């Protein structure tokens, strides 16, 4: 039976050195037709995971299924349906945009017309004889995406594609990714270390930190998770005593102040009352910034 997931990993582990593990039991589930944001700070294991998905590195433990096939059993046929951009845009600087695509055209078994199609799609059809090394950073990024789109992929893997792009470039890329997903129904995995950058385009998210998955689900699920994780920053004349009397609100120390879990405005008033009844002066009582970026930073700093 066909699975709903284009890509699934099971207990994927990887270590570069014997005693330094980079990935711990990664279980990715990328639904068909989704834009899956794979988020994590630099060095959290995103590129390692994506490299394993493309067979760029030997798998040590776990399994990878793509298009309902084990990657290790049918790598070449699976790669025929995947477009990828790993780390920096990679192409041959001494060749033109068309020549770069021609290098891979037969490898992917596509018609000559496809080169013009993808060049138009990324708005590079009028670059003529200009060598790729003379392209602007945005153009280089678009050429790398054109290369990834060349095989008419069912799955597109983009590793930090917004790196080095200016705000306009980021907006253009976002629109292109949405267009590819909505019009061509390509499933897209896009990694980034900035949640805000991908928040506006993804349908699903996976958050990785220090090689471990912290969250995986839809954007809606993340918002619910965020709601459940709402916290209140607090600073008082006697923080130790306040933490003791507010034990029910799961106090957590962060630097000089501390925070409490809460689930509504009424609870803020209740916390304030409790502090006043215990003769504790309140200097600060403020809900933490309520956005996904804060949640992401919270999730990752709490574990660091």
């Amino acid at each position, binding site marked *: 039976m066909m699975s709903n997931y284009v890509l699934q990993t099971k207990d994927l582990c990887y270590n570069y050195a014997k005693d330094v593990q980079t990935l711990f039991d990664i279980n990715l589930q990328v639904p068909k037709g989704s834009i899956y944001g794979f988020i994590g700070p630099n060095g959290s294991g995103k590129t390692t995971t994506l*490299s394993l998905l*493309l*067979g*760029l*590195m*030997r798998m040590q433990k776990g399994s990878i299924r793509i298009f309902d096939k084990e990657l290790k059993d049918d790598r*070449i*046929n699976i*790669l*025929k349906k*995947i477009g*990828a951009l*790993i*780390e*920096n845009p*990679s*192409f*041959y*600087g*001494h*060749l033109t945009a068309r*020549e770069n695509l*021609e*290098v*891979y055209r*037969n*490898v*992917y078994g596509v018609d000559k017309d496809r080169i013009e199609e993808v060049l138009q799609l990324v708005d590079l059809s009028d670059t003529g004889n200009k060598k790729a090394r003379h392209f602007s950073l945005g153009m280089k990024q678009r050429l790398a995406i054109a*290369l990834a789109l060349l*095989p008419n992929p069912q799955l597109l893997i983009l590793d930090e594609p917004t790196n080095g792009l200016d705000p306009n470039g980021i907006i253009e890329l976002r629109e292109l990714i949405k267009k590819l997903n909505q019009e061509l129904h390509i499933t897209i995995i896009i990694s980034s270390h900035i949640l805000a950058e991908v928040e506006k385009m993804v349908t699903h998210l996976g958050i990785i930190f220090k090689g471990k998955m912290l969250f995986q689900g839809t954007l809606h699920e993340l918002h619910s998770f965020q709601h459940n994780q709402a916290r209140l920053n607090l600073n008082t004349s006697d923080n130790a005593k306040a933490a003791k009397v507010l034990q029910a609100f799961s106090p957590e120390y962060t630097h000089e102040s501390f925070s409490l879990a809460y689930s509504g405005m009424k609870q803020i008033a209740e916390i304030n009352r409790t502090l006043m009844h215990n003769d504790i002066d309140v200097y600060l009582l403020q809900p933490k910034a309520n956005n996904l970026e804060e949640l992401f930073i919270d999730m990752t700093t709490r574990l660091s």
Partner: protein
Amino acid sequence: MSLAITFRSELLKTKRTSAIYLTVLGALIVPAIKLDELLTVTEPLAKMYTYPWEFYYKNGLHIVMGLLLPFYMILMTTLLTQIEYRNNTWKQVFSSPQSEFMVFLGKFLSLQLLIVSFLLLNAVLLFVVILLVNVIDPQLGLMSQSFDWQHLIKTLGKTLLLSTTVSSIQFWMSLRFRNFILPLAIGITLWFVGLMFIFEYKTLSKEWFPYSYLMMLVFPDYAHLHGTLLLNALLFTGVFLLIGFFDFKRRKGKV
């Protein structure tokens, strides 16, 4: 079929690279010097050589085979593999639907094609030079002298077979090291040692030192060893291609 596709892809990458320029310009060096020599000597050419076509080989093709070709191969293997390193494209290559074996073989074959082109270009250009000289000095009467084509074809064939050893060793090293200086320095040192073996240490056995093979093909003193050299060359090429391939496959994630 997939090898043909990978081979084509590898050849397309060499377009407008220094690998192509080096092949063409490198092949002009010896013919140009030869032309200059033949036009500037004061003695009659017929007196300088024992038979009229001798100057095709002497200070001509023999210089290409023994000296220029090994040096060309050392430079060329580095230039070819640097195309991927310099453009940071190894990951793109490996994430495309090609097996590591095809990529390895495709690259090695494109290297061999350039080596063959270099050698043939030299052979043809030397002919052009000799014909030019014959036009200038018709008394040489080269057109009325027979030319031993079989010998030339045999010599070129042997040269190519013997050269695969050095090219496979250099190919492995160039894939192994991201830093292009290393394979270049090691190759030039070994080539220099090979020359010393031939010119200075004449009593030492050279059949197992591939960097001396092409020079041994040039000197008639080693004619009796040609059969051994060809067998050894095939053996070395096979061994180094195998080592090179497994090392290439093993290091895939690290490039």
